[in-house]
């Protein structure tokens, strides 16, 4: 079974982002970037499946990223974590790739690669769209399991425990299938130095959207990006009594 894993390069989750002075975008130049945390979980899950299933069951783990040249960094991270091979669909710097386009690019790659399982993060922490995996499932007509917290693969079938608003639900999907990862799925490993060195020798193929016959078109025009309204400064209270009094008389929420 071949597993295809999606990875996105995003501004690191710990960075306090800033909106640029023209209010057109979030400042991304000279800001620390890393692999989207949910995608790191996706790579980890693929590697764990290989370790968990009978030897040879997972024939290959392919990591795929779409974006500018620097995306190769996150692909190297995925290779260092245990992916065998990477594909980079390269677009010029500052090209906007909306989820539907990424899904189309992934769909074109998936049709060539024929993976049995596609693992993607549930959302990217920059655009917070939460769409790509579902769109890809629609384009490929694969079954989907979203926000997966636990995954079992056996008999050409995936059984996934998915986080829903009130708790958990279990679904089964015939393979080929797409799953999107939730935070609880696993704890990603750190790439060790020897593995980082080995990753440099693993194959990383470059493709262009034209190779995949996908037109890059933006359907959403960003008119403005701004910081949300700041909350007015609060006050510190000295005791429980004072807190209750403030909540009753001043804030009137009790």
């Amino acid at each position: 079974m071949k597993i295809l894993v999606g990875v996105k390069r995003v501004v690191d989750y710990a960075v306090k982002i800033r909106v640029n002075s023209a209010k057109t975008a979030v400042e991304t130049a000279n800001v620390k970037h890393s692999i989207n945390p949910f995608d790191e979980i996706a790579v980890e899950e693929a590697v764990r499946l290989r370790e968990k299933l009978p030897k040879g069951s997972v024939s290959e783990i392919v990591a795929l990223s779409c974006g500018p040249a620097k995306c190769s960094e996150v692909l190297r991270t995925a290779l260092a974590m245990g992916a065998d091979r990477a594909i980079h669909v390269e677009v010029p710097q500052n090209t906007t790739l909306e989820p539907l386009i990424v899904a189309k690019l992934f769909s074109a790659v998936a049709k060539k690669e024929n993976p049995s399982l596609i693992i993607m993060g549930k959302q990217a922490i920059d655009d917070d769209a939460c769409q790509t995996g579902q769109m890809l499932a629609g384009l490929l007509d694969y079954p989907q399991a979203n926000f997966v917290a636990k995954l079992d693969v056996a008999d050409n079938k995936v059984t996934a425990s998915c986080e829903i608003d009130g708790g958990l639900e279990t679904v089964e999907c015939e393979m080929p299938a797409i799953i999107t990862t939730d935070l609880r799925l696993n704890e990603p490993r750190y790439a060790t130095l020897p593995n980082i060195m080995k990753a440099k020798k693993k194959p990383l193929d470059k493709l262009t959207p034209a190779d995949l016959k996908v037109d890059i078109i933006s359907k959403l025009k960003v008119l403005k990006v701004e910081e949300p309204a700041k909350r007015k400064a609060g006050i510190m209270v000295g005791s429980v009594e004072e807190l209750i009094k403030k909540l009753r008389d001043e804030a009137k929420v009790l």
Partner: protein
Amino acid sequence: MFLSATKSTGLRSFARITSQSINFSSALGRVNSRALLSSLVYVEHKNKIIDPASLNTLYAATKFGGPVSALVAGSDAQQVAAQVAQLEGVEKVIVANNPVFDHERAEIMAPLLAAVQKNTNATHVLASHSSVGKRILPRFAALIDSQQISDIIEIQNESTFVRPIYAGNALETVQSSDQIKVITVRSTAFPQVATKDSASPIEDTSAPEVSAKSNWVGEEVIKGDRPDLASAKIVVSGGRAVKSVEGFEIIQKLADKLGGAVGASRAAVDAGYCDNSLQVGQTGKIVAPNLYIAIGISGAIQHLAGMKDSKVIVAINKDADSPIFQVADYGLVGDLFTIVPELTEKI
């Protein structure tokens, strides 16, 4: 694809749409384009009860000015549809009463939505940005080649929306060029629709044939008497500093005293102090209650993303430098194990 397709009533429906648009025209945009607008809302329900977030989504749909249709699917759909027909702003309820729609699998629901959208000529298709809306709508959007707009918090006109990005640290105003706008709605950003005295017509629709390659096996839903986290007026949340499952009980006691819901930070959930479904934040629930009490929560970016639109925020933490105090209206520095029981007793 449909066994019994519904026909529009031609001129009469056009006239109705136009008069509707004029009523709304002062609110948004031009009358001419408004006349062609219509919205379709996917209504979530469970145990014959409409999901509260769908009421917010229906309200958002009324902002476009055109007629609003509501789609209710599942084996209880007929009963839920009767409730939906009584909601303000809903002009028509479309019912797909068939057990195949139970458990809302994206594979089954996306083609149904596509068929109903086609029948109703809806220009806007909306669902809540809930776990169900999030899994169904993008699949539908891909089927009709539309770039979805997720988690909107404001509607500026029929094609322009505001949505949070980067865990709510920036707000993006986007204009969609798609003919059919596919939208998920942040429920806390819109009020709920009220009920009305009359009932709107209910229309049956049948299912497009889909051979699903997925199966729903079962669910474990946390049952309780507490109000729903996403729509509660008061939320009391605990973080890592509660230290244990027993420690988390004092959070629950305070919530019960206040008649509020219980929330948690990721740290508390990961440590196993409470259930996953209580997590508030970028990857959990987004809440905006009147009162949010954060206890033993440091206030990481990802947690703030889920609660910083609360009307009043109270923080109780022993570390005076915690980032949570920067967003709190009222802060109290001290040991939660003495403060919270005292607060519960005196409130």
